[in-house]
């Protein structure tokens, strides 16, 4: 659906973030971070503000990851819809403490980050928004080291024009 208004200008046309993101020159969007944050699991404000994937990884973990086949990333080859892309990751690594997802082509690369206390299985399934065809990277922090897996997801709008 192109971003021009349809036949009914009055109809409240909610343009989905994914299908036709109107990129605003907002520079760094100031997140209104809630003041209080639990002691150890503080919301990684800085990391979510980074545009590029490398900066986001550095801001979140402060180190770099190496690809590993022990991290199984599952995502569709062609996304049914950029607004709702089902993804999941599992790993055979042990002493996993955190799992994060990065969508390279999104306005802000870091999509989600999970803290995995011991006793919790190192696997997560989630639904993400992807602005356009992009590389999706999952990073697992195990025993202090970072391991990653990457997959490309094709994303385009649907419909025949309008």
């Amino acid at each position, binding site marked *: 659906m192109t971003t021009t208004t349809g*036949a009914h200008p009055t109809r409240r046309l*909610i343009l*989905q973030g994914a299908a036709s993101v109107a990129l605003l020159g907002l520079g760094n969007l100031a997140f209104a971070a809630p003041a209080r944050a639990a002691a150890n699991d503080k919301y990684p404000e800085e990391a979510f503000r980074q545009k590029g994937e490398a900066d986001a990884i550095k801001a979140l973990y402060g180190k770099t990851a190496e690809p590993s086949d022990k991290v199984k990333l599952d995502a*569709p080859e*062609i996304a*049914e*819809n950029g*607004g709702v892309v089902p993804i999941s990751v599992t790993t055979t690594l042990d002493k996993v403490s955190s799992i994060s997802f990065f969508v390279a082509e999104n306005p802000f690369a870091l999509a989600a980050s999970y803290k995995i206390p011991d006793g919790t299985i190192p696997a997560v399934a989630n639904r993400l928004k992807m602005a356009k065809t992009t590389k999706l990277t999952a990073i697992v922090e195990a025993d202090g080291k970072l391991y990653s897996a990457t997959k490309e997801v094709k994303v385009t709008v*649907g419909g*025949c024009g309008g």
Partner: protein
Amino acid sequence: MKARSALLLGSLSAALVAFALTSPRVIAADKVDPVADAKAFQNFFFQKFPNVTHEDFVNGPYSMNEDMKRQWQEKEEFPPYEFALDAGKEMFSTPFKNGKTYADCFPNGGIGIRQNYPYFDTKEGKVVTLELALNRCREANGEAPYSYVKDEMASLTAYMAFTSRGKPMDIKIPDDPRALAAFENGKRYFYTRRGQMNFSCASCHVQSPGERIRAETLAPALGILNAMPIYRSEWSGMGTTSRRFVTCNSQTRAVPLEPQSDEYRDVEYFLSYVANGLPISGPGARP
């Protein structure tokens, strides 16, 4: 060149008419035969997609593409229409200001009856769809009608569809010339090209189901309404049959008609009738 092709066309159509006159099936007017139409319609899809089980046609694009079917089944574990379903269930049991509820307006309290809609009302001489009946129930009980394309109507129809899940579509055409005319009018609408794109419903849903229009895979026309109402990721919200018809029109650059206008009610009547026997699978989740 133009004169010659016009001549050619003229003679061709003359020949066609002659042939039609002599062919056995010709009857004075093109007699409307819904039973034959439904059989031909279903056989067309069963032959075009031999390895799609008959029931699977009601799953729209997912019957056409394995990868998308997997994505869909994953989502069905905890489907996005869950909220609309709960809201519908709650609304269905919340009494109107006059104390009555929707259950008083519908046979069997509105439970497990979606497969009989739309039906032909012989008193009114017109097709009555589930969405229309719900609004008429509201108005009869002094409540304001809901928009046909917004969430409340989708939640109500989602709950009613859910109570009919698995039941075969069971649309009846009474032996009443007006009912046959409504069926024929619906069929005509389905095959008529419109909009600057010059597409009819059939251009996409009969000629090229399984193929893509950009990212979307086209659903087969057979059973296309069995999953209504649907939660579409595209709208990231619920959509009724009315909303689907209106948006399809705009896609082909045709100005949509009023929701629940005769043409829409009749095409819903046609599409539901030819899907008789296929299970109700609403509410559905779609791209």
